[in-house]
């Protein structure tokens, strides 16, 4: 069937940033196709991109601004409480009424308690332009740096580990380089599920003769393609990496030239490795010492070797240590700053890279320029024409804690769902109920939305223009293919409208004002304040995206980073000590719970639970090793109750040897069995990221479940 029109755009799911074509007929998406000529996916897609975008047509899309029924003009508001449903809790409102109410409340709270009494979540799914304007609004009009997003809950460990050692946190290589690798090490990334199209390049590399080392407690699909699989006990990653470093140093497999020219503190670091023998690591991690030696030799002796990692490394209370350990390995062997060789944290969300790049973080402005640096701050103050708060803001989980303490009184949330993604949800809920005001801007009413005083309906990716930046730093166009449903408006439009109202109430004028001739004008301003993006224009990326850094319009973009050394000047070897997970199984809670993703769902499930994808994975399923299943006892398809010290959920059993003995795996996509009711909200001291991979739980058979697939 021929479509009425074909609109090229960027996939809204993971960080690979596949180029897709929305084939539109009768104002509906008929099918998704893709161009075989275009990077980064060259005609390949996964199930989510090809069949999962029908969520944009779901009947539960928000189509009108909503205000809580119990709000009476002139009266103080009730605190945030979860409404039973949208129909019961809310009434439709005009944009003017809703935005005036939001502006009044935010202005009043900023006036009474200071800007730091407001917390803001920007959005790793929204465009660069949305996020740039969002953080500018928060910093200039609300005068706070309390802005963060879900990257805190995913790659904060990687960012902290990379920043303190080399001074840059982006993925250093490119997808196109992968097929030419000769050795790669994948750890803590179930790549075939979480970044399916990147996994295709890894498989192709193996076809081409590359050797793959997988270090993962779970028997993931990539193990089928691996030369070596090191199955460490959950949480013992640092032990394995340190022992590999020990082997590389003791067998003198390191790259002297690289170490001398590009690093510092090697001697102290090498000395610190003495106790971390492979035999010691075998005790701690369960990986045979010999396998650790083999992996170290394979990696060190490679011509070009790359490290790829995901949440298994980062989402840990020692996430920064895990990442630093990997950086140490790469620097030892000089596998950094060359074609195919480097450090590659795989980013999860379609635009989590861009959201961070645009300054959606409490301690940096756009382009990772530190808030704490007076000169930088003065530059931004001059560029925007306003005074800026010198204090770093709070991170995502810290903001929730600050609400509990009454220090934050209002939340403004764009497109995020902390009530699914935050750890220890019961505590998060109690915190949210302490809020004097909460506004949310989203395409669906997710779990968090029902706490809000005001809900603003936004356009989906298919209904707005802008850019996303993928995991390999490629800035790519997003184009509108459909009109937003009802009164819904593109995020940028909503933000600018709100900013104009706030600007008036706060009496603050920025240099540029809040009238922009579309997202292209916003992007031009990004280039003015963040030089890495200056050379990327909408015209240049009309067909193929460009990888930043790209300082001027003649620059072709950057295939791989650190060719001339690392941003810190010299890479710093980071001595580490092994720390076990904070919560380990005991007699009462004898199993370790690891949370993560399925191929067929996406994060909080707000989108995928409303798409064809839900038909294939409609219910929460917990993976249990056959040996554990005998011990519990339970069988395939049984219901079990999973309890931790913080909460309990019910899920259906899938007996599978993907999970090792003693560890169960529960995806976090299902609000009706929210894995994060169980998880622990202790944070990595350096990265402020919680541990989603190690929670002690007990399992008991269950007769019934109380699941309701709640779509508000």
């Amino acid at each position, binding site marked *: *069937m021929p479509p009425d029109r074909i609109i090229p755009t960027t996939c809204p799911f993971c960080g690979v940033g596949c180029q897709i074509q929305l084939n539109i*007929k009768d104002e509906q*998406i*008929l*099918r*998704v*196709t*893709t161009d*075989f000529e275009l990077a980064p996916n*060259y*005609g*390949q*897609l*996964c*199930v989510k991109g*090809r*069949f999962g975008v*029908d969520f944009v047509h779901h009947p539960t899309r928000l189509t009108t601004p909503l205000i809580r029924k119990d709000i009476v003009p002139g009266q103080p508001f009730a605190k945030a409480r979860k409404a039973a449903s949208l129909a019961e809790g809310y009434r439709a409102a005009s944009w003017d009424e809703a935005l005036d109410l939001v502006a009044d409340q935010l202005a009043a709270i900023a006036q009474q308690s200071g800007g730091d009494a407001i917390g803001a979540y920007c959005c790793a799914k929204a465009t660069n332009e949305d996020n740039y304007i969002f953080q500018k609004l928060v910093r200039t009009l609300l005068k706070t740096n309390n802005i963060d997003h879900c990257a805190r809950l995913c790659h904060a460990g990687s960012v902290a580990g990379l920043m303190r050692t080399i001074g840059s946190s982006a993925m250093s290589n490119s997808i196109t380089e992968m097929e030419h690798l000769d050795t790669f090490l994948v750890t803590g990334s179930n790549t*075939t599920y979480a970044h*399916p199209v990147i996994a*295709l390049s890894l*498989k192709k590399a193996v*076809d081409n003769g590359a050797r793959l080392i997988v270090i993962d407690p779970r028997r993931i699909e990539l193990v089928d*393609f691996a030369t070596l699989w090191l199955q460490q006990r959950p949480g013992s990653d640092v032990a394995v990496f340190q022992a590999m470093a020990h082997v590389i140093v003791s067998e003198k497999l390191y790259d002297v030239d690289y170490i001398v020219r590009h690093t510092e503190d090697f001697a102290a670091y090498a000395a610190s490795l003495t106790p971390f023998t492979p035999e010691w690591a075998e005790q701690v991690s369960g990986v045979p010492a010999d396998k650790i030696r083999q992996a170290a030799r394979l990696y060190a002796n490679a011509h070009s070797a790359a490290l790829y990692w995901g949440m298994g490394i980062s989402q840990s209370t020692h996430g920064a240590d895990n990442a630093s350990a990997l950086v140490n390995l790469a620097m030892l062997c000089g596998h950094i700053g060359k074609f195919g060789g480097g450090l590659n944290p795989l980013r999860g969300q379609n635009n989590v890279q861009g959201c961070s790049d645009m300054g959606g973080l409490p301690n940096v402005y756009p382009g990772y320029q530190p808030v704490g640096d007076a000169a930088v701050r003065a530059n931004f103050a001059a560029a925007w024409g306003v005074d800026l708060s010198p204090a770093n803001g709070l991170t995502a989980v810290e903001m929730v804690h600050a609400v509990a303490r009454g220090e934050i009184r209002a939340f403004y949330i764009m497109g995020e769902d902390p009530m699914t993604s935050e750890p220890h949800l019961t505590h998060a809920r109690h915190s949210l109920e302490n809020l004097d005001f909460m506004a949310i801007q989203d395409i669906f009413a997710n779990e968090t939305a029902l706490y809000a005083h005001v809900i603003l309906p936004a356009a989906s990716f298919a209904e707005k223009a802008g850019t996303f930046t993928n995991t390999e730093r490629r800035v790519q166009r997003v184009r509108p293919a459909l009109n937003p449903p009802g009164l819904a408006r593109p995020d940028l439009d909503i933000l600018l409208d709100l900013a104009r109202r706030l600007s008036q109430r706060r009496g603050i004028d920025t240099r540029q004002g809040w009238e922009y001739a579309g997202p292209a004008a916003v992007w031009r301003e990004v280039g003015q304040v963040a030089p890495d993006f200056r050379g990327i224009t909408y015209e240049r990326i009309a067909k193929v995206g460009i990888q930043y850094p790209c300082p001027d319009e003649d620059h072709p973009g950057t295939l791989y980073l650190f060719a001339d050394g690392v941003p810190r000047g010299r890479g710093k070897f980071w001595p580490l000590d092994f720390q076990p997970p904070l919560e380990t199984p005991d007699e009462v809670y004898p199993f370790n719970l690891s949370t993560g993703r399925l*191929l*067929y769902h996406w994060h909080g499930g707000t989108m995928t639970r409303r798409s*064809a*994808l839900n*038909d*294939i994975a409609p219910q929460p399923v917990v993976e249990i090793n056959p040996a554990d299943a005998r011990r519990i006892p339970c069988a395939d398809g049984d219901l079990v109750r999973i309890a931790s010290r913080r909460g309990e959920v019910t899920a259906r059993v899938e007996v599978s040897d993907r999970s090792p003995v003693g560890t169960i795996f529960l995806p976090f996509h299902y609000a009706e069995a929210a894995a994060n009711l169980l998880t622990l909200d202790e944070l990595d001291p350096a990265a402020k990221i919680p541990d989603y991979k190690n929670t002690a739980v007990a399992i008991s058979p269950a007769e019934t479940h109380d699941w309701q697939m709640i779509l508000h």
Partner: protein
Amino acid sequence: MPPNEIWITIDGQALKVPPGITILEAARLAGVEIPTLCYHPSLTANAVCRLCVVEWRGSRTLVAACAGTVRPNAVILTNSRRVRTARRTILEMLAASVDLSDAPDLQALLAEYGGDPNRFGEDAARRTFDGVKADNPFYVRDYDKCVLCWRCVQVCADDVQHTYALGFNGRGFHTEIATFFDAPMPDTTCVFCGNCVGVCPTGALKGKREYLWGG
């Protein structure tokens, strides 16, 4: 050292091309269009459909342009009477045995080559299978429309996905694309990437959404 370029002649036009490229690539350099069916630029060329055959002076049989590589001094005819007859016959046999209603490109080629879809008469055997297979939430398989180009099998295997959910059952005229033991898709290794749907040239594989739409 092999030469950097070799001389060949395509349809009377002499040109220098890099050695080792396919006849199809060489023809494109010469600005000559050769029709293809099973060939896909992102996949291994298996030369199963024979639609792209050309005449190579000195070769006993016609040569598939997608897979055959040029050699020095090759003299190639891409549109000779013999070539046109072969292509027309292939298209007529496909039209007689397969439902090409969702393959406008093939219908256009049939017309261009003066093919008669009813050449083999009323009794011509048709490849019909027991209905549309709709065994998963994402795509349907209608093998009445399948021309056995192999693209889906290859994209599912080493060319892209490395999932190996699709293969062949049967032999000769009864060959069909199928899963192992004809198992429903959710019971196979299929990960529903739909890369097979993306390369299907005849609408035999189609998104379920589009199928339910009425197409």
